[in-house]
């Protein structure tokens, strides 16, 4: 009798101890996660909900929000004369800059891998521009590409070529921004470099034994093995393209040459020249923080969120077809 009584006491103790341990663990997790829990709700969840709410109001921060139903969305989809340009520009920059950056980064990384001498030196050179603050880099490029006095056009003139107007021309302003973007691929290039070096050598050797030439080795060994990295770069690039703001804003401001003697607000330079650098986030900024049309800006941000989410999901889903995970990592 005594042993069975003792036997029933022990499991109870153990469960109580286990429950106490579980409770202590939960408290610990709560403590550790608390900053993020607050952060997530206040800086992610709340804005999301609030954006949706504000998008149905007219709000200029001077008086309380006024409910106007779907009027903002109607204006956004049918009336705003600048939205069409903004969307086209953003899609353009994504479609052109991301592939160029990925290809260029991969190309430079491949060359670095094959270089026998001075690889470290070259690696530094190609990485350095990525460190330049975007504002500084943009300012530098606007000056260098100044159609009249910039070094590039001066050099072209010596070669007998009449240089384009670069940031002053609606046709060349986006390509100029793309050049600026490609100049800064250092980060992606380093990632590609590491990934290419990680490709197991025996895969190359067996491919060579099978008679594969360099191009075929590239197509069937290198690319599939580093495909997760390619996917990563593409996703990062697309997300960055959807938020492309700083370079466009600074370039338009500086290239338009309008001195803003503190006080002069009669000129709106966003998108200079001819709305060619008016990207969606720039337009959002204009409506929300120049005109203080915050309800409308919220509608724009809701649309951006939907598009960003859709594109990301599409890319990731599509990636299953061509991305090859070596079994390890993910």
């Amino acid at each position, binding site marked *: 009798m005594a042993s069975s009584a003792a036997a029933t006491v022990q499991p109870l103790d153990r469960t109580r101890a286990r429950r106490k341990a579980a409770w202590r663990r939960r408290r610990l997790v709560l403590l550790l996660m608390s900053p993020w829990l607050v952060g997530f709700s206040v800086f992610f969840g709340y804005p999301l909900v609030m954006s949706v709410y504000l998008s149905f109001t*007219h709000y*200029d*921060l*001077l*008086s309380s929000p*006024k409910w*106007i*139903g779907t*009027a*903002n969305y*109607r*204006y956004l989809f*049918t*009336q705003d*004369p*600048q939205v069409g340009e903004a969307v086209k520009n953003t899609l353009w920059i994504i479609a052109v800059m991301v592939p160029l950056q990925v290809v260029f980064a991969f190309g430079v990384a491949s060359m670095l891998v094959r270089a026998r001498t001075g690889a470290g030196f070259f690696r530094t050179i190609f990485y350095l521009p990525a460190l330049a603050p975007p504002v500084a880099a943009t300012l530098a490029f606007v000056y260098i590409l*100044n*159609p*009249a*006095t910039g070094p590039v056009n001066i050099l072209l003139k010596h070669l007998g070529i009449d240089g384009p*107007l670069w940031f*002053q*021309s*609606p046709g060349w302003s986006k390509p100029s921004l793309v050049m600026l973007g490609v100049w800064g691929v250092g980060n992606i290039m380093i990632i590609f470099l590491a990934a290419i070096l990680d490709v197991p050598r025996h895969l190359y050797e067996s491919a060579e034994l099978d008679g594969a030439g360099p191009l075929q080795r590239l197509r069937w060994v290198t690319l599939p093995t580093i495909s997760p990295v390619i996917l990563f770069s593409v996703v990062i690039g697309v997300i960055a393209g959807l938020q492309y703001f700083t370079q466009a804003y600074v370039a338009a401001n500086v290239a*338009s*040459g*309008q*001195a*803003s*003697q*503190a*006080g*002069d*607000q*009669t*000129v*709106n330079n966003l*998108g200079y*020249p*001819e*709305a060619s650098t008016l990207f969606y986030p720039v337009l959002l900024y204009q409506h929300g*923080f*120049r*005109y*203080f*049309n915050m309800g*409308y800006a919220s509608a724009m941000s809701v649309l951006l969120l939907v598009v960003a989410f859709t594109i990301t999901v599409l890319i990731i889903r599509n990636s299953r077809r061509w991305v090859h995970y070596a079994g390890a990592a993910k």
Partner: protein
Amino acid sequence: MRRVGIGLLVALVLGAALIAATARTSATAGTSGAKADNITIWVGWSAAELKAFKGVVAEYDSKHPEVTVKVVGGINDDKITAAIRSGKVPDVVSSFTSANVGQYCNSGAWLDLKPFLSKDKIDVNMFPKTSQYYTQYKGKRCALPLLADVYGFYYNKKMFKAAGLTSPPKTMSQLSSYAKKLTKKNSDGSIKVAGYNPFLGFYAGNAPDLSAYAPLFAAKYVDGSGKSVLSKDPAWSKMLKWQKSLVDWYGYKKLQKFNAGAADEFSASHAFEIGKLAMMIDGEWRVAFIGREHPSLDYGTAPAPVDDAHPELYGAGYVNGTIIGIPKGVKHKDQAWALVKYLTTDSHALAIFSNGVRNVPTTKASLTSSDIKPDARFKTFLKIFTNSNSKTTPITAAGNAYGSLIQAFTVKWQAGHAGDLAKGLQKLDKQIDAQLKQAQAGGVP
């Protein structure tokens, strides 16, 4: 663990202190009771012009020992609206962008000044009609004018003499022919000296919203009911066609290169001041700038040339001005009003300030005040200011957002990318109307 904890605490405290230190330098008035000693005024001027303003305020301070006025310069409209939105407002604000008065009055951001005006028995007719117009919206007066900006014509007399021209052009066709005569090119075809730069977006006199040209062609932006009439008023097409013909004569790309190589508008290497530009439309402040930076420049001022079909308009020009008011949320309204009243109605104060920054004083009395330092070139602008045909741009509840839409069209137009002019203007009218409706929270038409 404890070391980490203490370190963290210290960091947090330091951090909070630093954040507080860098928080917006509060411009609120003193927190003491009703008889406040400190009031703050925000103005857009900076550098030398701010100094002149501070001189005027110092005179006020000496006359009113119970109040000390703090002056903050370099303010723009974004700062003003941000301050009002966050509740931390100065006592008096002033803005260069009179076009925004519609927004300020309509939203109540600036207080209605009528009770103050009637209490002190001030008649608004002491201000010229145009200045009255750009300081109120739909009858609600929330601002008063504090010095005006008037646009006129500057021409380089030395270059005129060398080209055999004796007097400034009076019509647009004369302007074009003079411009072609005065232009000099480099050996590679690029522009060395431009007779007149018609490029919209180059310097203030070429505002892409066409505000500087509108009074010269008697062009109206809106009709009586507030609808945009850019396509209906034939003056606009005439103006744009004239402008483009001159741009094409120079060559669009060549003009772009000239602009890119020109120095900043408010630098001492301003294209007109260093002789790279023979004629230009600019504001009256340029007289003071030239006097400071290039006193030996041989130049003259005159009213801007006008449409050939309307010679009677000669003498008119575009007018806008600095506006001053009291923002919502101010505690010391009476002191604020006293300062506003002094700055805007006292002839002596206006004259002294006008001398300092060479802007146009804004009461009929101050225009003829003996305190104004005589200057033949500056006098031109005083005359333009009082001309009955001088106009300003329409005040709307959306501020000058319509200017951005016009700008988007005109920059395309001058580049030749805008297609059919009539159709383009019609589309522009619709956009402007829709935008105004959206800004008034009236939904979409």
